[in-house]
């Protein structure tokens, strides 16, 4: 099946088995290795990407469902320059240990900032409730996202 979509600001067309999961398309076809698979069950959020402005788990999406969608991964944020601010504050607040959850956290935070430019801690906590982190205990991540929101400057 031919599928068209926009990935990290580039138009793409792929010819692929429609029952391929989005996480596999991104990792295997496009080598976007920021997209991690943890549980494969929608529970851990490691595979979180943004589709049409919203955070979603790419392990529970088939490629047949993404026709015409606009998809962002961490590599796209890197290209646009936005990733810098995430790097700066995640580092400053000690929000990265093993790093496995980090790309998913970044995408969930970025999607939150689409919807809510000035989230409070509770709103941040809710936004990343679907992202499991085995290392940090979450508070450092919430601190980092709070600082990022304060610095602001995100387009939608």
């Amino acid at each position: 099946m031919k599928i068209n979509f926009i990935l990290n600001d580039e138009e793409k067309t792929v010819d692929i088995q429609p029952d391929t999961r989005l996480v596999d398309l991104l990792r295997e076809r496009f080598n976007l290795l920021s997209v991690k698979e943890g549980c494969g069950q929608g529970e851990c959020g490691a595979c979180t990407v943004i589709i049409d402005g919203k955070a979603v788990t790419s392990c529970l999406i088939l490629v047949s469902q993404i026709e015409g969608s606009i998809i962002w991964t961490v590599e796209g944020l890197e290209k646009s320059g936005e990733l810098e601010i995430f790097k700066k504050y995640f580092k400053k607040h000690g929000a990265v240990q093993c790093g496995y959850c980090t790309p998913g956290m970044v995408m969930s935070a970025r999607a939150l900032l689409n919807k809510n430019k000035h989230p409070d801690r509770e709103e941040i906590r809710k936004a990343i409730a679907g992202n499991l982190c085995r290392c940090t205990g979450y508070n450092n991540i919430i601190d980092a996202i709070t600082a990022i929101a304060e610095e602001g400057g995100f387009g939608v």
Partner: protein
Amino acid sequence: MSELKVYTPGEVKEVLKLLHDKEKVRILAGGTDLLLELIKLKREGCVLIDLSRIEGLEYIEKKDEELEIGSLVTFTDIHDNPVINKYAPALAAASGQVGSVQIRNRATIGGNIAHASPAADSLPVLLAAGARIKVLNAAGAETVLVEEFLHNKDKYRNHLITAILIPVKGDNMIDFFGKVAYRRDVATARINMGVRTVYQPENGKIIKASIFLGALSKTGVRADLVEEYLTGKRVDELERERFFAALRETVDKSIPGRYSQPYKRRAICGLGDDFLQELQREGSYE
């Protein structure tokens, strides 16, 4: 492993034709429930009908005394929608408790009903409000109570749910949704409860109570003993212990001897307590 056949129809009538013609078909809406079984679906050689290219099933409208919600509306959109927050607040609340942000962004109300997992958070509130759904198959359209649909799932297997119809909450009604789970967020309900009560504005007497408990059996369980206890009483006449006893008895009747019975018969009282407080806030008359 054999691959799945996936169809991506652009029109409802093509969906109906596929449902009619194909064996082992499953409808793919948001996918947050169905794709958990991806490996099994492949093994069984299932056929998927992916609804992502169907337009026109993503609306929310108030029509007289009913809210009509297209079956492909996501829980994020339900939770955020001002009309639903005003006229079906318990549904808005329950929708905000479905899974994580990522799940709510994909999961649809139609999928939640069609899949009807025992712990689905939208079901007790839909049941309590007496919601109906519009279903279609090759033979035509039908409107059926959610309760009836859930009890006759085989009959409706080859149907497409197109809309959900919910009687709006009137000024003389109190709606409630509560859930107990292992964690605060993103957790499957261990037990949940949806309520709609109607009271007489003059004296605050409850004239009708609909109460459904989820995660107890395959479909929502009507708490008829509790309904009976509440009906005809004013809020200030309710006795906590008798109310709790009726809740516990409902749990005991539904899951006798199940290992979770002792836990759930206590948990239900926590929810009952929240509900009583809501009643006292909203429905007290001096």
